[in-house]
C-alpha cells in the first residue's frame, strides 16, 4: 500500500513504502503511514510488530533500506542525524523512561527546554525568566513541581515517565512520538496522561504507541494496527477491534 503524492500535501509525517530488515528479518515491511498536523494517533500492535523500529526510523536512529520519510511535507528525514531531527521539532519519549538520573528534576527540564544547543550556548547559558516560566508551566501540567530539586534518579517509575513527558513538552516539538507512556503508571495517572495527551494534540501532532487498551480507549482517537512491520488496519478503535484480520492476529495463531 503506497500513499499518493496528494496525501503528502497536508501531512506532518509521511512514510511511504518503508522497509528495514536486520539480518534478513524484516522488522518494517513496506510500511506507509500519514499523520496530519494536529492529529493524535494511537499505534498498537503485538510484540515485534515494528513499533519501536518505526520510531527509530523517524527519529534518525536507524536508516530505512528503502522508502521515503518526510516531515512537514518536504524535509527528507532519512538525511539527518538524531540531534538535527530533534531540533527540527520531533520529540521522542522512550519506552523505558529515560531521564538523566544524576541531575535534578529541574536540571533535566532545563536541558530539555527549547533553545540553542551549540556548545558555546551551553557554556554561557543564563537562565531567563521566560524559560523559568515555561518550566513552571510544564510543572503545572505534569506535576512534580514540589520535587524539582530532587535527583531524577530518586523518582518513582511513573514519576520518571511524567518527567520525560514534561521534558518532551519543554522541548516544544511539532511532532511528539510517545512510546508506551502508560507503562508502570497507576490508573489515576493513566487517566491524567490521556487527558494531557489529548490537550497537547491540536497544537502539536502526537503519535502514541501503546499496549494498554484502556488507555487507547481513553484517548478516543484514530488507531493504526501494526503487524509484522506493516499496517494491518486503521480506523476508530471499534472498527479496528471488529476487523477480522486484527482479531486473528491478536487472538488467533
Amino acid at each position, binding site marked *: 500500500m503506497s500513499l499518493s503524492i496528494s496525501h503528502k500535501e497536508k501531512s506532518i509525517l509521511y512514510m511511504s513504502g518503508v522497509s528495514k530488515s536486520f539480518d534478513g528479518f524484516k522488522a518494517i515491511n513496506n510500511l506507509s503511514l500519514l499523520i496530519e498536523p494536529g492529529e493524535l494517533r494511537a499505534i498498537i500492535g503485538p510484540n515485534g510488530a515494528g513499533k519501536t523500529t518505526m520510531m527509530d526510523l523517524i527519529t534518525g536512529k536507524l536508516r530505512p533500506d528503502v522508502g521515503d520519510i518526510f516531515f512537514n511535507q518536504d524535509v527528507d528525514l532519512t538525511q539527518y542525524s538524531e*540531534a538535527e531531527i530533534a531540533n527540527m521539532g520531533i*520529540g521522542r519519549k522512550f519506552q523505558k523512561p*529515560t531521564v538523566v538520573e544524576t541531575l535534578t528534576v529541574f536540571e533535566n527540564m*532545563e536541558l530539555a527546554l527549547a533553545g540553542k544547543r*551549540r556548545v558555546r550556548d*551551553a557554556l554561557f*547559558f543564563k537562565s531567563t525568566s521566560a524559560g523559568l516560566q515555561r518550566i513552571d508551566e510544564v510543572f503545572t501540567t505534569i506535576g512534580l513541581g514540589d520535587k524539582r530539586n530532587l535527583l531524577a534518579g530518586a523518582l518513582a517509575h511513573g514519576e520518571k515517565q511524567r518527567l520525560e513527558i514534561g521534558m518532551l513538552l519543554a*522541548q516544544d516539538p511539532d511532532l511528539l512520538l510517545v512510546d508506551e507512556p502508560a507503562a508502570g503508571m497507576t490508573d489515576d495517572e493513566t487517566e491524567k496522561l490521556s487527558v494531557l495527551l489529548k490537550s497537547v494534540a491540536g497544537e502539536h501532532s502526537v503519535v502514541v504507541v501503546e499496549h494498554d487498551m484502556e488507555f487507547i480507549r481513553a484517548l478516543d482517537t484514530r488507531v493504526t494496527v501494526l503487524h509484522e512491520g506493516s499496517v494491518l488496519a486503521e480506523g476508530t478503535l471499534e472498527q479496528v477491534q471488529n476487523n477480522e484480520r486484527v482479531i486473528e492476529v491478536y487472538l488467533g495463531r
Partner: protein
Amino acid sequence: MTTTKPVLLKLLEDPASRRFLAVLTALALIVPCLNLLVPEGSVFHVSTYTLTLLGKYLCYALLALSVDLIWGYCGILSLGHGAFFALGGYAMGMYLMRQIGERGVYGDPILPDFMVFLNWQELPWFWLGFDQFWFAMVMVILAPGILAFVFGWLAFRSRVTGVYLSIITQALTFALMLAFFRNEMGFGGNNGLTDFKDLLGFDLQSDATRNSLFFISALALGLAYLLCQWLTRSKFGRVLVAVRDAESRTRFMGYRVEYYKLFVFVVSAVLAGIAGALYVPQVGIINPGEFSPINSIEIIVWVAIGGRGTLYGAVIGAFIVNYAKTYFTAAFPDLWLFLLGGLFVVSTLYLPKGIIGLSRRLVPALSGTGKQAVKEAGQ
C-alpha cells in the same frame, strides 16, 4: 540561580572548592619559603629534593584533573592520556634542547647532541622555531590540542564509545611510543631529550628556578581547577553529565553529542599537555617511556582512588598514589606493581567513589553541597 555575580565568586561558593584552593595556595607559598628561608639544619627545612618531588606531584595532579574532566563528567575513559602529557613535555623538551647550544657534549651551536651523534647535517624542519620560548609554548598547546581534535573528531563522529574508545586511545599512545623510540623520528630515540641547562636563561639546577617552577605548577593547577569547575558547573557540564548517563536521550533532546565530547576532550588534552610541559624541566628528562600504556593506566588509578567526578578527588588521588609509589619503589621495589593493582581492585570493589566518597560517608559534614555528593560518578 540567576545571580549576576562575577563568575569567579560563584565558583568559590562551593565550600569544598574553597578548602581545596586554600590548601593549594598554602602549599604553593609555604613550601618555597621552607626551602629558601629556613636553614638546612632545621626540622622545618624542605629539601630541594622534596620540593622537586612535590612539583612533580603537582604536574601529575594537573594530569589527573584533565582525565577526571572527561572520565568523571563525560564518561570518556581515555587510556591514552599520557600521550598528550608526553607531547606537551616533548614541546618543552625541544625548547630546552635548543637552549643548550654550544654547551652540549659535541659543542654544536644548532644541532642537539643526538643529531650530531647520528651524523645529521641540519635541523629537521619540525625543530625550527623551538629556540623561541613563545613558539614552544604555543606548541605545548597545539600539539596535544590538534592530535586530540583529529582523534576525537574521527572517534566521536563514528560514535566509538565505551571500551572500544578506551582501546583505541591505548593504541594511540602505544603507536606514538613506538614512533618516538625510533631514532629517525628526530626526537632523540629511546634516550629522549635530556641534559637541559636553562629555561629563559634561568639555571634549571638553581633553587630559585626550582621554587619558581614549583610555584608555577601550583598556579597552573589552581587555574586549571577553576576552569574545570567553571566548565562542569555551567549548563555545559550538565550536558556532559547527560551524555555520560543517558547519551541517546541527550541526542534526542537535540544536542550534538559529538561536539560536546570533542570540545571537552580537546580542553582535557591541552591541560594534560601543559602538565607535561611543567613536568619536564623539573625532572630534567623526557623520553618515549612517557607514552607507555602503563603510564596512562596509572592516571586512571589515581583518579579512581581519589574519587572521580569531583575534580579535587583526582588531585588528592594523584598525590596519595604517587607518594605511595615514591615510598614503596624505594622501600619495597618488587611490591609496588602488586600494590598498585591491589589498590585498584580494592577501590573498584569497596570504594567506588574513591577516597572522597569514603570521607563523605565517614564525615557527612565534609560533603559540601549534598547534591554534588550524589552527582559524582554514575557509571
